[in-house]
């Protein structure tokens, strides 16, 4: 593991270093809510997924959803974190119309998951380890609708009571790039685990970002918290803006007010939401409706035994078993869907030890390149893993050249079909029969006597002959055979 050098910001009075910590709110993937049986389905008509408990009717009581606990523990294991066999649910008291109980059930002093860490890869083979402070379970709030009536706001409680995991990092992040890479990595881990779908557009993954600046290595500055960010790009922009804003204040001799801020992506700036003085006194205390959450070590061990392979482990395996470069391996494992696609290609290959690395190149360069060009993602790829595996098999066994393979890929992309049948029906097979190539070779040598003479002194110019022959064969000649034949005919 290499330690990253991070970006410092230049101010008028010297360099500044950013100190960043994050609280990620990740919606737990589960069919029902944290303390009620109501559905967690997204996009229902307002107030159609609301139980008596979610609406906080008098006398209603919360009952913990065990699946949400399992998901939190699995996530903790995925973050290499300590799992607390006993944790406590607390009430966080405040009034807001989207909070029917008048308190959010959360975990304050005793979270279900303690300290852990995440390895975050950066460009150029650098990486940084970000510490996890804790992970706890809590209820989501409902949503206010302000556009339904000219004089009133309406409340939609569909989200009220949905389980969230709040994942709190240590202040180990030092610049916007690291922050973005951390969220990306965390999201990837959650999606591998299947504990959160990571859909930031729907708000299923959102981040509060704490930013402060200091002189490199100096004492910590006062932080500001930027609330409720649901785009990785905006997180980067907000951090850059916020750090610059703070530096400007400090360099002008001012002081930073500890406050909560919001990022406005249209203006590209953060603005104050509430100051420390205006902060709520949440009056946390243990929820007397719920017993402490207790489970056994064997419950944890069982979940651990059934964890899927996570991106770091997969990357290591790709490098060790298939000889992929670390970079290629990280590109493939970054998204669970990409890794799954690649692994399906591997499974279908006739000879994965021979062609596994080639398959990685094809997935990364040809497939991802083409998908990016068209703005599609891997799940919408017109070329299936099976088709791509067939194309790679055809290259590996020498039936087609790499160049023909690109044409074939294009045909499959556009028209679909079985690559092997297409090669057959469209006469794309590589010519390896020497006698068929020999005439072409002879003709080209005969037509270019001066070049033929030169090549004996300048063997590098053999490439020109190879190119001519390939061109004349319509790309179907086997380049190695052409090479060998030319060498013997030209006497080099």
């Amino acid at each position, binding site marked *: 593991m290499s330690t990253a050098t991070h970006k410092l910001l230049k101010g008028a009075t010297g360099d500044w270093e950013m100190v960043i910590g994050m609280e990620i709110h990740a919606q737990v993937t589960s069919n029902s809510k944290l303390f009620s049986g109501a559905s967690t389905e997204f996009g229902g008509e307002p107030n159609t997924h609301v139980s008596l408990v979610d609406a906080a009717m*008098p006398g209603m009581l919360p*009952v913990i959803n065990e699946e949400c606990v399992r998901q939190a523990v699995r996530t903790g294991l995925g973050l290499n974190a300590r799992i607390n066999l006993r944790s406590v649910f607390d009430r966080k008291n405040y009034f807001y119309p989207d909070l029917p109980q008048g308190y959010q059930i959360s975990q304050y002093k005793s979270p279900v998951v303690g300290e852990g860490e995440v390895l975050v890869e950066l460009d150029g083979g650098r990486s940084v380890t970000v510490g996890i402070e804790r992970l706890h379970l809590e209820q989501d709030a409902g949503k206010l609708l302000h556009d339904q009536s000219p004089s009133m706001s309406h409340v939609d409680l569909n989200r009220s009571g949905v389980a969230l995991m709040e994942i709190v990092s240590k202040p180990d992040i030092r610049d916007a790039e690291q922050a973005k890479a951390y969220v990306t990595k965390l999201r990837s881990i959650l999606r591998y685990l299947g504990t959160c779908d990571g859909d930031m557009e729907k708000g299923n993954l959102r981040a509060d970002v704490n930013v402060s600046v200091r002189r490199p290595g100096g004492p910590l500055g006062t932080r500001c918290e930027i609330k409720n960010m649901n785009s990785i790009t905006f997180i980067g922009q907000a951090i850059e803006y916020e750090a610059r804003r703070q530096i400007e204040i400090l360099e002008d001799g001012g002081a930073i007010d500890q406050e909560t801020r919001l990022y406005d992506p249209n203006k590209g700036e953060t603005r104050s939401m509430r100051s420390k003085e205006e902060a709520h006194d949440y009056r946390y205390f243990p929820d007397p409706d719920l017993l402490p959450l207790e489970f056994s070590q064997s419950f944890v061990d069982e979940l651990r035994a059934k964890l899927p392979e996570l991106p770091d482990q997969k990357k290591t395996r790709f490098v060790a078993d298939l000889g992929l470069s670390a970079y290629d391996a990280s590109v493939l494992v970054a998204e669970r869907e990409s890794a799954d696609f690649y692994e399906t290609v591997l499974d279908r290959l006739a000879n994965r030890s021979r062609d596994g690395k080639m398959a990685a190149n094809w997935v990364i360069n040809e497939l991802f390149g083409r998908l990016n060009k068209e703005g599609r993602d891997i799940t919408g790829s017109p070329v299936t893993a099976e088709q791509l595996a067939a194309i790679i098999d055809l290259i590996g066994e020498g039936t087609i050249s790499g160049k023909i393979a690109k044409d074939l890929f294009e045909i499959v992309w556009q028209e679909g079909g079985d690559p092997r049948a297409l090669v057959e029906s469209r006469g794309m097979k590589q010519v390896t029969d020497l006698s068929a190539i020999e005439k072409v070779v002879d003709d080209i040598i005969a037509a270019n006597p001066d070049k033929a003479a030169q090549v004996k002194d300048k063997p590098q110019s053999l490439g020109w002959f190879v190119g001519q022959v390939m061109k004349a064969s319509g790309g179907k000649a086997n380049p190695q055979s052409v090479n060998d034949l030319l060498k013997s005919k030209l006497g080099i």
Partner: protein
Amino acid sequence: MTDLTSLTLAEARKGLADKTFTSLELTDAHLSAMEAARALNAFVLETPDQARAMAREADGKIAKGDAGPLAGIPLGIKDLFATEGIRTTACSKILGDFKPPYESTVTKQLWRDGAVLLGKLNNDEFAMGSSNETSCFGPVVNPWRREGSNTTLVPGGSSGGSASAVAALLCMGATATDTGGSIRQPAAFTATVGIKPTYGRCSRWGIVAFASSLDQAGPIARSVRDCAMLLRSMAGHDPKDTTSVDIAVPNYEAAIGKSVKGMRIGIPREYRLDGMPAEIEKLWEAGAAWLKAAGAELVEVSLPHTKYALPAYYIVAPAEASSNLARYDGVRYGLREQGRNIIEMYENSRAEGFGAEVKRRVMIGTYVLSAGYYDAYYLRAQKVRTLIKKDFEDCFAKGVDAILTPATPSAAFGIGEKGGADPVEMYLNDIFTVTVNMAGLPGIAVPAGKDAQGLPLGLQLIGRPFDEETLFSLGEVIEQAAGRFTPVRWW
């Protein structure tokens, strides 16, 4: 035929089974009694149509021979219990005309066993009070009066409607709840029997919450046996309340008449308060003597942290209440008083909807949980609670089967007489009962005698966790020795 309303629940059960009378007749007798007793203000809602329909259904089942254990027995339900489609207000203005679309687990079990709903009973607003004077429907009047006096007395609280209705023969039994003494104190003030079972014995689901870690449902009835019968139907594990305990419900009635010979009864010296009226002292001694005569052994025990119980209770209970009552915000149901913005709407609705005592407790609770005070108040109160619990555990570990104490420091007092200037004066009513809630133990109040003015007084028995049976056995000994007490009808 004797007046059907004067039967005990056990006697009525026999009469129904023998077809001496029908549930409809029994129900109608009670509905008439309720109508005639409106001066007591015990019921805040009478449900005669519902009652007669349920009675007919019970009669049908009795005729077919598949009657449940409470088939055809008319009951009153404290207005803290959610009753489906029937107004449930916790006697607070803030719930307005709230009709829950659900039935509390406890009442659901009563209907399952064939009981008949007569109506909803008055109580202190959100069960906060010891005199039933804080109800938005006005105070309940105790059917008992001092000899030769027309002064109206409180029935105690918060289950004042339950106690008053049972004592005045308006219902055969009633549901009640007890957070700091709200079953036992009104039972003692009205010469009825009330048991607060072990915390976790009855489901809290569908009961308007006051202080979740202390609230527990229980019955008030006219005899120990009647309480045993009711509790059997009310108790039981409920997966919808994770604090309810999954222990089989015994046939409590079987404990009635069981010998108490050899049982060790603790007499806690800390309950001997300075300035305690001599008649309370005398009553306590009488109770001890009766138990001794029945073969029990008396031992002096010490519960050293008793004196801290009341102050600690008045931190823990308001703290939980301040949070539990946050849901009454005018947004989704109940009273809404408009304002220029959301904060004003909250303020107006809660200012208008809550009474003075509720507001006082919400403010105390908010204060003790606030930053900088939490450790000094709430956390310390919880520590005290642990110590109180340990006091009892130590006592039971020494082989004590139950503890005998007075139920209240005095008999019923006049309406408007107490707590006007100093709320603590009212809070002191619960001095003997709150420790039991703080420790989560079962406690029963049994009528044991009268004071010099002819007002009933009760004794309390405190048991081991989930050992309500011992309390029923011992309670019945006191009941047999002391006799039954019925108020002279004046209303």
